[in-house]
Every structure is written in structure tokens, then in C-alpha cells.
């Protein structure tokens, strides 16, 4: 089961826990699982957040594979100068 961690602000917005254990083979399945529990969460994440999957940050994502021991942190998208 991949470990998924939401930022406090997003968790609060959806009255959700900040941590989830999700059985998913890729990011799309993970987001679908989260959205089933908290409708609208998938869109919020996709529109405004990046994912740090096992330490590597993805600004865009959909089919990235997840391992059972994967760690996914939902983090704000980063821009830059």
C-alpha cells in the first residue's frame, strides 16, 4: 500500500485525514481512490498541486507507477524566477 500524505490545508478543505494508505499501481488509480473517499479531491490535487513520489517531484502526473512501499507527498506546485 502506497503512503499518501496531504498538506494540512488540503486535508482540512475536504475534512480528510492527512495520511492515507492506498493500494494503487499508478498515480491515476491513487487519485481515483482518494476521490472515491473525498469527492473533488482529485481535481483539487491535479489543478493546484505537485506530487513528490519517492522523493522526486512531478509537476504533471498521471501514469507514474507506484510500488507498495512508495511514499507520495502532495506538495504545492513550484514555479521559479
Amino acid at each position, binding site marked *: 500500500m502506497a503512503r499518501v500524505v496531504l498538506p*494540512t*490545508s488540503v486535508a482540512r478543505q475536504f475534512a480528510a485525514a492527512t495520511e492515507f494508505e492506498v493500494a494503487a499501481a499508478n498515480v491515476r488509480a491513487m487519485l481515483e481512490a482518494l476521490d472515491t473517499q473525498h469527492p473533488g479531491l482529485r481535481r483539487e490535487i491535479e489543478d493546484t498541486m505537485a506530487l513528490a513520489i519517492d*522523493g*522526486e517531484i512531478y*509537476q504533471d502526473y498521471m501514469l507514474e507507477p507506484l510500488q507498495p512501499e512508495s511514499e507520495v*507527498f502532495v506538495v504545492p506546485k*513550484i*514555479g*521559479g*524566477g
Partner: protein
Amino acid sequence: MDDAPHYKFVGTRPIRPDGVEKVTGRAAYGADMVLPGMLHGRVLRSPHAHARIKSIDTSAAEKLSGVKAVMTAADMPEIPNELAPAGEMMVNFREVSDNILARTKVLYDGHAVAAVAATSPSIAEAACKLIKVEYEVLPHVIDPVAAMADDAPVLHDHIFTEGLPEKPSKPSNVAKRIEIGTGDIEAGFKDADVVIEREFNTAAVHQGYIEPHACLANFTFDGQTTLFCSTQGHFVVRAICAKVLQMELSRLRVTASEIGGGFGGKTVVYLEPLSIVLSRKSGRPVKMVMSREDVFRASGPTSGANVWVKMGIKKDGTLVAGEAVLKYQAGAYPGSPVQPGCMCAFAPYDMANVKVVGYDVVTNRPKVAAYRAPGAPISEYAVESVVDELAKAVGIDPIDVRIKNAAKEGTRAAYGPKFGPIGYLDLLNKVKESEHYKAPLGKNQGRGIAAGFWFNIGGESCATININEDGTIGLVEGSPDIGGSRASMALMAAETLGVSTDRIKPIIADTASLGYTFLTGGSRTTFATGMAVTQAAQNAIQQLRERAAKIWDIPVEAVEWEDGFARPTSSNAGDFEPLSIGDIAAKAGKTGGPIVGRAEINAAGAAPGFGAHICDVEVDEETGRVTVTRYTAVQDVGKAIHPSYVEGQLQGGAAQGIGWALNEEYIYDKNGKLDNPGFLDYRMPVASDLPMIETILVECPNPNHPYGVRGVGETPIIPPMAAVANAVAAATGVRMTDLPMSPPKVLAALGNANGGGDD
């Protein structure tokens, strides 16, 4: 044994491909383009910091001879007040549109209200003076802490603070509250032997690019528009203009001019939609160029801020807790870089207990824009200042405290993920071992060090490698070249193809000639576009091998590419003379047509940047002047593709950070009018102010890039403010907590204010 890869071209220092045009004055910057029948546009700007627009009368301006078009916000589509995707971010385009041209209220001195196109600049300026705007002046607020007060004038009725447990009942200037953290902050402080807390203030500072914003739009009656402009991202300009003007992307073709500096400030659109509308209304090309005063009054600086930091340390030098509250001014619309400020604040440290709260605060100033490592220099200045004090409190050298607590591979950042391979510890040891760190100091001199962290990003990039008929190579990419990236792209293509850089001509294509490429920012270009260029070159090599196989009539698997030549893999494949790119290109027509390598990618795997700077200063106790006498910037650069330009990034970031530390600030009068909109009164460092900035490049390759690239452009602006402040503290024994550390403030802090003072 040195197991680092040995490259033939990567890591060398060829002359930049755009160098001759620049040093001979022939490079075309934003204001240099001219078209037949071209008009000159000018903008009428608000004289008030905060006012309601009651009416605008343009009739007198329209009647002036030579005036061909006048526009107000009524000439732009009304955009709904909602977030919409824009590149990698969600943006409220209503606010973008309002910032381009005020619709109902002006929110800062310099806010654009109307625009004119005329046959000469002087006629356009005269016409602006004929436009009558009736204002209802409103109370204003400049300072972010004052803007958070309950009785502060509220800028926007629709902003209710996000990030609170309950939606507030009344609007506020606080657009958002953010909180990140890890561990147990209270337990961490209980564990500490020494706890220090300090409050800091930093000034809003401008990116200070030499070339002002400039553009030239040409609308034609078939509905097509071409736009030439100075920008860090012409695909993003196209997207924003199309959105705020409700155009199809295919009707707007944007070409990026040569760019005279950006530093994040040219990721924003100001003049471009105005020139398009004025061109559409007049039927003529319209050029618009900001004056320096316009640049200061109306284009984005980065935030000024109020920062409170509390940290705890054990006697053995272990940092056990870090807490911070960041209040960043966003300017007139939400969107300060407080989020990355929160995430970066304690990132250089492997520290168990962290809590950071941030506030995004609107004020009656120009909307902030990105500036190198947006948000990070402010929070890290405060943290690095406190770390310096903590080290002294426990009697440990500040570099040893940083070495003891340094983030390493596997360290979990307070914002969540673990770091991959990073060279932070290596570079801290380089600081400690450096001749500079050990050099003696003179009277009234002090030395400070400080560290910095920035994420770096990847993103979307396209590249094409055109194999010309004579074997030379056209390299086409879409990233505007701010810091010498064309040279780096040519080097990576040369290394991959095995041919010299003088055979490769890199160009930056317009938006109609290449696929979407995200802007030059976030320290992404050499990483992401470099990855696209490398993959395009590999794609070309595959095709070159296939063509050689056809020429030799052998299987492609029996052809290898080595040092710029196709060769049989072994004598079993046949006895053939190697074929150069030119040999293969000459027969391209017979073997299938032109050879074009291409790549379209969304690059992930950007590795973070860490750096540390050493600063020596001398403080004049009579005048309060701080002179930087020696400065060294040390950074993990992954792999320096063109070391001269990497060193240049470190030197430029350090110079800008020193200006932020010592002199730069926006000064507003009591009416909220900017008092110093020019380089005479807004004091940036010039060459004679600074010593030669020394650099030490530490190369810890990014495993996710074919040549190990890490972004390098932003990290170097993070350490300077604290490095200078720590040096001033070492020289004087006084901790400065307000930036800039200008002579009057230093004098006041020294208790020696002979006619000076903190005004």
C-alpha cells in the same frame, strides 16, 4: 580513482553563439524591432495608491492629431473571477486582466488605467495627459503587517482568508494562511539548551533588469497577430494574452527578442495585450516600451516581508527545533511567494521539529513577480541569521554547526519528501577548507557565512536537430536565453553527436515553429531543455545510423555511432570507411529525405540546489557604510555544462543579494506614491561597489539528467543577505534585523547616529 564521466565538449568554455551580435550592438532586444507604419504606445498610470475609478473620458485624447487609438479596460473582455490553468499554475485571470488595465479600482501608484497609440512617442504622451480620469481616493496600506490589522483598508471585497478552519465572515487583506511542519515543536524547544528568537523585516526589491519591458504587436485584418517581445517565456505570453483577450492560440505568433535580464520579472505580461488591442483598433503595428519609472512603479518586485524565527540548539551543536511565521506582501493581488518561503526556510537542515506558518498579504503596491528563488531568500535570511547567533551562543564555529546538521541524501525535508543525492555536505566542507575562510581579517572587518536551498524544476520543452545538407546542424529550441543557455544547448548537442560546437547553430524558435516550451525560470532550462536537446540529438543519431546502414546495405544493428561518425560495429559487418554527418547528409535525398531529430518532453527529476557563501565586510563606524571586501560563492552545480556561465550565475546572484542586503528598497511617501522609481535613488550595486566574486563549483551529478545537470540560477541569491548580515554582526557585534543595512540604519544600530537615523 576518478569515476566521473570524461566529456569532450561538456565542461569546456566556447564563445557564446550570441556573443558577437551582443558586443557589436546588433542583437535585437525588445525595443529594437521596427515595422513600416508603426505607431508608438504609451500608458496612462494611476497617481493614487488606492482609488475607485468613477469615470474615464478619452474624447480629448482621441481628437488629438496623430492619435490612432485609445483604449481602456472596456476594450478588453470581462474575465470571470475564478481560477483557471495557466502553464503549471492556477491563475485568477480576472486579476491578471485588472493588473494589465484597471477596471473599477486602481490598487497602486503606477497602475495602468488607459493606453494610447500615436504616430510619435511625444504625441502619445500628450494624449495620455488629455485623458480625464475621475477618482474617488481611498485609504491605502503599504506595509504587510499593517495590512493584516483589523482596521486596515481592505483592497478586495472578494478575498476571504483561505487556509483557516472556518471560512471568515468578512473580507481580508490576508489571502491565504499556510502551515507546514514536522515533529513536535514544543518538545523540540524543551530539548534545547539555547533558544533564540528574532523578528526580521525585509524590503521589497526589484529584479533590476537593465532592459525595460518592451513589445511590438502587429494585428492583420485576417485576424492574425504577431508579437515580438522581451520575455522569459513566449509560449506563456501567448497563453496569457490569448486568455485575457479571448483569442485562439493559433491566431497569435510570439517571437522572443534577445533579453536584457529577467530574473523572474519577465515571466509576467504587462504591455503585450495593450499593444495587441491598440494594433487591432488602429490597424497598424504598435510598439510599447516602459520607461525606467514605469518599470519601478508598475512591474513586479519581489515581496517585502516581516519574519519571526525561533530556533533551539543543544550544547553539542545539534539543532533541535525551528519555528517561523512569515508575512509576505503580495502587492495588489494575491500570490506572494510565501509558500516556497515556508517550504525552504529550514530545508538545509536535518532537524526533527519544524513548524512554519505563512501569510499571503495584499497591499497597495505593484503585484509581486517572481525573482530568483521566489520567497526563499527572505525566509532563509532570517533562519541563517539565527543559526549564526545560535552557533556563537554555544561556542561552535558556524560552519561546523551547518556541517553537523546538514541535510543529506535521505534527509526528509520539513515539507515532506526525502532528498536524493545532494552535494550539500561536500560544499560545506569546501567552505571550511577554503583559503578564504581561513584568511585573516583587518580592523572593523568581519566574516559571515550562510547557506541556501532551492527546489529547481523541470517541465515541458521541445527541441529539434536539423541536419543540414552540408553536415552542419541547426539546433532549434524554445527557451529564451537569459544566461547563456544557447551555448549550453550547443555543448550538450555536440557531446551527444560527437561534433564540435562550431558546427552547431542554436536558435530560439517562435511559438508557431516549435511545440510548447515552458518559460525560462525555476532554474529549469539547462536541465529540461537540455534533456530535450540531448534526446533530439539521440533521435538524429538513430536516423543517421539508419541512413548509413542503407548506404552500406547492412542492417542498422551493424552500425554504431562514435565521435561523430557512423562505423561498422565490427569487421564482420563489412569493411567500410566511417561516414561523417556531412557524408550522410549529402546522400539524404537518396536514403529517405531530410534528417531531423526531435524530442518533446515533460522533464521530471530536477535535483535541488544547495549553496553556501562566505562574505567579508568592513564597516565604517563614522558613516555606517558597509563595504564587501571579499566574497566567495560555493554551490553544488550538478555538472557545469559551460563553467563560465555557471560561475556567472553564482556571481550575479551574489551581486543581487548583496544589493538586497545593503541598499535596495522601495520608499513610499505618506500618500503611497513611490519616491525612488529610478536607478539613481534605488541603489543597486555596480561593478565598482563589489570585489570580484570568487566561485567554487562542487559537482554532485543529478542522476536524472544525461549530463548530470542541476539548475544553478536561483540558489545563489539566497545566502547573500544572511552572509552579509552575519559578517556585519561579526565586525560590529550588532545583529541587524532590518534590510537593507543602509548606512543610516547601520549608524543607528551602532548607537552612533551622527545625523543619521532609520527613516
